[in-house]
């Protein structure tokens, strides 16, 4: 890794390993789950060795995802708490979307969009897990009544749709905001990146006052 000397660490090794385990499991879940979702996507089950395999594997990927998400939650919940800066930032969402960054108010380590992705997944993954268990035929087919399972499968597919849309937005944002992928693969960003996209976080790092991380207190 050729890391410039002046670079800022954005994600630790543990952050990154956890994130990519999470991403891998999520993609496996999306591909296998969508194969049951619509007939035109049934071919995706071929990636897993056929329909029976996709059906058998999907819930286990899900169990893995929940464990992985607990790790993500512990590591990231604090930086994703909403604060007053998010109101100003969210109001400038049109400027954000059009790359008019001059007119976007400064924000801390995470912006409101990133926080929204975090909290949406924090809501959706446990929802998918609980409803997924209820419709897991092999182990829980007899555990609940059929009417309960009908509701569970409806909620599961709605939550999956929600999670996929959030995920598309998340992936696109990573492509759109150049060099943010590198922060999650190699762990660092340049000071210019922090200055441009997360100015309040930049000042926290620049002044080395990590202890006083309340973004409201920083310029």
């Amino acid at each position, binding site marked *: 890794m050729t890391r410039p000397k002046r670079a800022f660490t954005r994600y630790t090794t543990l952050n990154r390993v956890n994130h990519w385990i999470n991403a891998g499991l999520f993609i496996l879940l999306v591909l296998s789950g969508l194969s049951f979702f*619509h*007939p035109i996507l*049934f071919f995706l089950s071929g990636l897993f060795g056929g329909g*029976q395999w996709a059906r058998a594997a999907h819930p286990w990927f899900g169990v893995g995802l929940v464990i992985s998400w607990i790790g993500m939650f512990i590591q990231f919940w604090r930086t994703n708490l909403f604060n007053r800066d998010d109101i100003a930032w969210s109001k400038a969402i049109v400027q954000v979307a059009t790359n008019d960054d001059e007119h976007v108010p400064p924000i801390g380590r995470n912006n409101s969009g990133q926080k929204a992705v975090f909290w949406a997944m924090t809501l959706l993954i446990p929802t998918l897990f609980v409803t997924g268990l209820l419709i897991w035929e092999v182990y829980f087919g007899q555990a609940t009544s059929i009417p309960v399972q009908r509701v569970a499968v409806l909620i599961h597919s709605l939550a999956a749709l929600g999670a996929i849309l959030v995920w598309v937005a998340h992936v696109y944002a990573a492509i759109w905001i150049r060099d943010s992928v590198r922060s999650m693969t190699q762990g660092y960003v340049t000071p210019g990146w922090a*200055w441009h996209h997360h100015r309040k976080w930049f000042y926290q790092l620049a002044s080395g006052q990590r202890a006083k991380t309340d973004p409201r207190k920083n310029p």
Partner: protein
Amino acid sequence: MSDLQSQDYVRRSATTMTPPMARSHEDQVAKLIDVSRCIGCKACQSACMEWNDLRPEIGHFEGSYENPMDLGPSVWTLMKFNEYENEQGNLEWLIRKDGCMHCEDPGCLKACPAPGAIVQYANGIVDFISDKCIGCGYCVKGCPFDIPRISKTDHKAYKCTLCSDRVTVGLEPACVKACPTGAIMFGSKTDMTHWAGERIEDLKSRGFENAGLYDPPEVQGTHVMYVLHHADRPSLYSGLPDEPRISPVVQAWKGILKPLAVIGIAAAALAGFFHWVTVGPNEVQDEDEAEADRAMREVEEEEKSP
């Protein structure tokens, strides 16, 4: 039945194209179960096991005539017994042969995600093509009659086939052949409806004024029908649904949501792509780096000179 070319499909699960149906000009069939003539001997249950080579596990006596206690992957038809005390205080022993109703609008087929795992032939029979079944249990959720059962051994769904293998070669289902009282009849749906009419008239003349045919319109009729002495209260017969409809939850899940969701996901991905080619990537410029360096120097100086 998947080994035989049937080419008479009218419905095929998880299929967006027309299934092979060139030979679909046969009559609609029906099995008519006349509950009033059944003596509960279970000859049909045995015949079903024999013809279909099914060997359910031997269980325990549970204090009921029902044996085993529930349908299962190897129990495709089951005699259900209910002791009902009528308004006059007399005991009525209501016996019903339970099993797949072969709905004209089958909820199992609507729910199934595996292409071709459930099919309906032009004669109305709903058949599970086990080879294509993935064992997800969605058919269980789709069925308004609580019929399909998933095997723990091979993870496939099973239920009565209406002896589709016998019917295609012009034989009647095994249960029909075995019934000693003629309580189970098989033929074209028109003939069976007609025959049921005669039976119902007879029952009415003998004091069962609510006698009638069970051919529920909520699922567009069934290819297994009952003559009931209490057709006004089907649930007396060990929980036969009064109004069996595909649950609105299943309709919502399998209906409009699916195409909308697929379009929605595709639209989101396309929106991203076109944002990329119109607004374009948000890149950090050299000026940003210079500004950042300047700001860092400033902070450093400030900290040095309090």
